[in-house]
């Protein structure tokens, strides 16, 4: 067991992340320390801030009111950003190392991540400064334990949901539905999550009995994840060659489009037949439903409407597009040497993006329920996505794409699906907001909307030109991309 700890310690410090200069590492360390201090300070003054906002009320109770909301948001963020703990099990499988122990170790290790540490950096100063001071020190302990339990629930639940996403998307959909209905009940004042949250966390401070429920649920989620890992910890699952019977299919509808259609067909099969790309597609699809949460709660000012529109209509493009070309790293040589016209190759991707945006837009018409303005904004953003964002995504894809090994051990192969890519998307998401804002300030609201339509329209009209530019760009970069993919 101690050996395992040593190994993962080495794995961490020998990872390529640290292979930079000592100076950069030092700066990173300082940055982390600075952030941690900020969090701690925030936790320390949270009580005073709450007292300012709600004078005469107990800041502890008011904070407790918000905690469950925090954990609801937390589970969404984690689902998207928390890395899945990777079992580096293969080198140990044939050795006399207890497999169960390995899995427990990996799962416990997963608790050590940014999500789990940052909340305690905030919570502990609050617990010391307020709860221990005004209630009791044992209450402070219990309160921290309650947070720990919910934190653990979210941690293991998000791991589980992410893992089963590709195989049993209905579980994820069901869970999403549950959360959505909870939020709906809260929104229509039928059940107040905050009241429940207050009851629970206030209760925990006075009586440890309140901890039993959350701790039991945490234990249950842990058990579910553990069972899932234990069931899948065999070599064949790493190699992912379950010999299922596969039907050869032709998507005859696409046959009309000759080479381009065939390229699209291959790409659709790529998405559907590889777990990693399939997860990306399903997650993007789930984002289409985010409207049910975003529109009732997020307000309807123009800027958030644009952002929501971008998320709903463009998520597939942004998400899948981050690894465009990389997805095909396994057979890029083949594409180059065979009779594939590069302009067709680009057209195929452009049409795929367009289809995804149009499909998401049609679905988003349902949000007219929350106001017609939404439809108008979504239409503007959809046109902008097709005409502008798609070309940006295509262009950025030609910058030094890295190899993705789709065929190898997809069960464990999730690198590059963490927060980093999410951050890369931020400038892309800012563009339509910026454009709208510019015309909104100079002329007015309608002009802002029209500017999105016009920019997108121009982009669509210039399809041939952009395609030609991109073809040239891809031709320039082809040697570099191909050699990246050969490692």
């Amino acid at each position, binding site marked *: 067991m101690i050996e395992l700890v040593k190994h993962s310690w080495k794995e961490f410090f020998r990872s390529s992340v640290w292979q930079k200069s000592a100076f950069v590492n030092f700066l990173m360390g300082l940055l982390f320390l600075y952030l941690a201090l900020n969090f701690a300070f925030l936790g320390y003054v949270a009580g005073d801030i709450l007292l300012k906002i709600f004078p005469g009320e107990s800041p502890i109770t008011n904070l407790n009111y918000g905690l469950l909301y925090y954990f609801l948001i937390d589970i969404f963020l984690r689902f998207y950003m928390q890395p899945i703990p990777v079992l580096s099990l293969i080198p140990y499988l044939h050795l006399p190392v207890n497999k169960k122990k390995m899995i427990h170790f990996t799962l416990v290790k997963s608790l050590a991540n940014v999500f789990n540490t940052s909340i305690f950096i905030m919570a502990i100063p609050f617990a010391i400064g307020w709860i221990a001071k005004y209630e009791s020190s044992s209450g402070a302990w219990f309160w921290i334990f309650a947070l720990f339990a919910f934190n653990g629930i979210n941690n293991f639940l998000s791991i589980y949901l992410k893992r089963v996403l590709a195989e049993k998307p209905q579980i994820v959909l069901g869970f999403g539905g549950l959360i959505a209905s909870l939020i709906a009940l809260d929104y229509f004042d039928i059940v107040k999550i905050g009241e429940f949250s207050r009851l629970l966390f206030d209760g925990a401070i006075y009586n440890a009995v309140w901890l039993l429920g959350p701790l039991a649920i945490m234990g249950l989620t842990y058990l579910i994840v553990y069972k899932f890992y234990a069931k899948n910890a065999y070599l064949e699952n790493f190699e992912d*060659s379950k*010999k*299922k*019977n*596969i*039907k*050869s*299919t*032709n998507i005859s509808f696409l046959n009309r489009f*000759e*080479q381009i259609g*065939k390229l699209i*067909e*291959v790409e659709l*099969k*790529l998405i559907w*037949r*590889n777990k990693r790309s399939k997860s990306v597609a399903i997650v993007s699809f789930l984002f289409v439903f985010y409207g049910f949460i975003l529109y009732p709660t997020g307000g309807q000012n123009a800027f958030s409407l644009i952002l929501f529109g971008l998320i709903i209509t463009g998520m597939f493009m942004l998400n899948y597009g981050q690894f465009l070309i990389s997805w095909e790293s*396994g*057979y*890029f*040589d*083949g594409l*180059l*040497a*065979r*009779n*594939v*016209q*590069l302009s067709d190759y680009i057209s195929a991707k452009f049409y795929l993006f367009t289809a995804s945006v149009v499909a998401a837009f049609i679905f988003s018409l349902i949000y007219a329920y929350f106001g017609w303005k939404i439809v108008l904004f979504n239409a503007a953003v959809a046109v902008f996505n097709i005409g502008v964002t798609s070309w940006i995504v295509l262009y950025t894809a030609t910058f030094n794409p890295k190899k993705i090994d*789709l*065929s190898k051990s997809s069960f464990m192969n999730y690198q590059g699906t963490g927060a980093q890519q999410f951050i890369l998307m931020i400038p892309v998401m800012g563009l339509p907001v910026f454009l709208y804002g510019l015309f909104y300030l100079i002329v007015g609201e309608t002009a802002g909307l029209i500017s999105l339509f016009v920019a997108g329209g121009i982009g669509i009209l210039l399809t041939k030109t952009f395609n030609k530019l991109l073809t040239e760009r891809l031709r320039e970069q*082809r*040697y570099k991309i*191909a*050699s990246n*993919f*050969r490692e």
Partner: protein
Amino acid sequence: MISINNLTKLYGDFSALDIESLNIEKGESFGLVGNNGAGKTTMFRSMLDLIQPTSGTATFKDVVTSNSEAWKNFTGSYLDERFLIDFLTAEEYFHFIGKLHSLSAQQVDEFVGQFEGFFHNEILGKSKYLRDFSKGNQKKIGIVAALIGEPEILILDEPFANLDPSTQIKLKALLKKLKEEREVTMLISSHDLNHVADVCERIVVLEHGKIVHDIKTNENTLKELETYFAG
């Protein structure tokens, strides 16, 4: 049919390929031999425009391969499994390649059907993805895919490696037939001197990226090659 002019590839100071001039006639079957690292794959890759040569050009039928994509119409090639789309079934892959040459699925099925013997009933109608086939079967799929679209030029890297003995014999017969019936210009690299001496009329030996021997095959060729590589 094929001409190479001053084609070189440097990796830093290391010269991986350095060919001043090489001409291959239409219908010629051309064998390339050499030890590991001699530059065989580098030569094929730079001819097929997969790596950027440091200098020089390869010309297929008046088309400089690094300047235009037109040569892809009449060139079939299979270098390694990076040419295969591993999440497709064999049929789907053949149909895809066929489509690139504007062949219908039916035409492709007919064409591929003649290779049933070569496939030894292990490829067609098997409901599995290319990644789940063995190395040898993957190679068979790659070779047959390279023949789709009636190529005038055929480039194969190590086609005999990983194949079982009877398939090796079938492949030799297949290549000979292609040459006789359709006058396909063939470039084949191999570590197996027997096979190359058997299939190719002309054999070139590479060493450190340079051509050190260029021989027309006759009954003494195999001996000659063996003495060269033994020494």
